[in-house]
């Protein structure tokens, strides 16, 4: 089976689909981290809320409506989190930030249990994407291809914005050296708020697209948090390139590890993480070269 091209295409697509989901989550987190050295462990919870928002709104106004509502709903929650917690914790140091955002995970976990119950919610795949497409002789669910395409499109847009626009250059300058950026008249705090909101919206979008793939449960945010952090550490803090590279590496190692070396699957990615930390402690493509 492993000599068969179909196997490699199928698993390659699976890996890519997992990678794109992780990319949507990790890109916001890594740029927030790089720009303001802020550790937001509650980022995974925003993903879970995105899934709930999409499933709930989707039941009322259809999948596409839900997909549109979720990022805005999660970004709005991000604004509240920013105003209530994050703004006043900016200078509190990483330990306080980790403790508070870790606490937020459990607050949001219980809030989702109270509002939606502990039972898994299911979100149907939209009719338009319910079929299968044939790629290189392999039949593959159209919805998963949509997830891949969406991730690639978001990557393209972010690469364009960060690499080619003035606001992108300002964000990269802020990640590089926030004091100097401020001395050039850049309101780094306002930029951070903007990036934070976009990061929250992307986490919400990731949750919305994941909803039909996985069952929507209160702890789905907790489950995705560790892979997201691994992606960021492998890729390097603060950079788009790091987020995409880390996501692809995670997706490939996890997917192919599970089918080729099932007995080692659960430790492969941690071994890779350890290797990266030993050989390149700053990750593969850190923003601060």
């Amino acid at each position: 089976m492993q000599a068969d091209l179909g196997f490699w295409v199928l698993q390659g697509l699976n890996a890519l689909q997992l990678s794109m989901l992780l990319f949507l989550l990790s890109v916001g987190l890594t740029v927030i981290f790089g720009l303001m050295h802020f550790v937001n462990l509650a980022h995974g919870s925003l993903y879970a809320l995105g899934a709930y928002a999409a499933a709930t709104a989707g039941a009322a106004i259809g999948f596409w409506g839900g997909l549109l509502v979720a990022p805005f709903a999660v970004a709005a929650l991000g604004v509240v989190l920013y105003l209530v917690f994050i703004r006043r914790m900016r200078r509190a140091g990483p330990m306080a930030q980790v403790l508070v955002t870790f606490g937020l995970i459990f607050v949001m976990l219980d809030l989702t249990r109270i509002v939606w119950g502990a039972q898994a919610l299911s979100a149907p795949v939209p009719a338009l994407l319910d079929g299968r497409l044939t790629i290189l002789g392999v039949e593959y669910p159209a919805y998963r291809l949509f997830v891949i395409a969406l991730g690639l499109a978001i990557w393209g847009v972010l690469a364009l914005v960060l690499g080619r626009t003035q606001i992108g250059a300002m964000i990269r300058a802020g990640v590089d050296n926030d004091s100097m950026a401020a001395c050039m008249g850049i309101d780094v705090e306002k930029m951070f708020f903007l990036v934070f909101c976009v990061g929250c919206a992307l986490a919400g979008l990731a949750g919305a697209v994941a909803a039909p793939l996985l069952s929507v449960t209160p702890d789905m945010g907790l489950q995705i948090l560790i892979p997201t952090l691994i992606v960021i550490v492998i890729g390097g803090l603060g950079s788009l390139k790091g987020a995409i590279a880390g996501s692809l590496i995670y997706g490939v190692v996890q997917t192919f590890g599970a089918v080729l070396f099932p007995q080692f699957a659960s430790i492969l990615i941690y071994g890779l993480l350890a290797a990266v930390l030993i050989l390149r402690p700053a990750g593969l493509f850190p923003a601060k070269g």
Partner: protein
Amino acid sequence: MLELNAVDSGYGETQVLHGMTVTAQAGRVLAILGRNGAGKSTTLKTVMGLLPAKAGQITFEGRAIGSGRPYDIARMGLGYVPETRDIFRSLTVRENLELAAKRFPAPPGGWTMARVLELFPRLGERMANGGMQLSGGEQQMLAIARALLMNPRLLILDEPTEGLAPIIVKLIHDRLMDLKRTGLSMILVEQNFGFATSLADDVVIVSKGQVVWTGTPDEIRADAEAQHRWLGV
């Protein structure tokens, strides 16, 4: 133009400035001299809002900037060239320059991209290079050019010759002399006595976070005792 009146400042618990009082006049170059650790860079960082002024007042053109944020202070018209140059390493030379040029439109006769590249033609050849690929001298040119493109009314330079080869020091000196001729107000913190006194109109010497000597370049050149006592020359 810029006045510090009895300013206290420092890093965390460590107080470095003790009642720093100094004035920079419009259209003139003020050199701040002193030994390592005297409080020269701390003074500039406090002016830029990078360190908090814990006591005293700082005014720029009559407006208080005492506890302002760096981006507000920069927008008031202060251009800052830090000791570490702080080129944005992940941006190209062009992007570093455009960060200032696109956001601070040049007034008539002000600094434009074309004009700073005339001042530092070397940068023109390096436009597509990344900030991290530049030599120390090129980084200094870029840091000055970038500050000029903000069209500041006061240019603040922290140790612009530090770590540079003599030929580059000469080049930076000549370009700063060109800037002085345009009437640009400048504050220059410098360890290089000859460099500083040849550019300055006014000189202050700082020791233990206070001004201990005030005069002109000619006066400090003639005052061997002050040189020996405060600068160890």
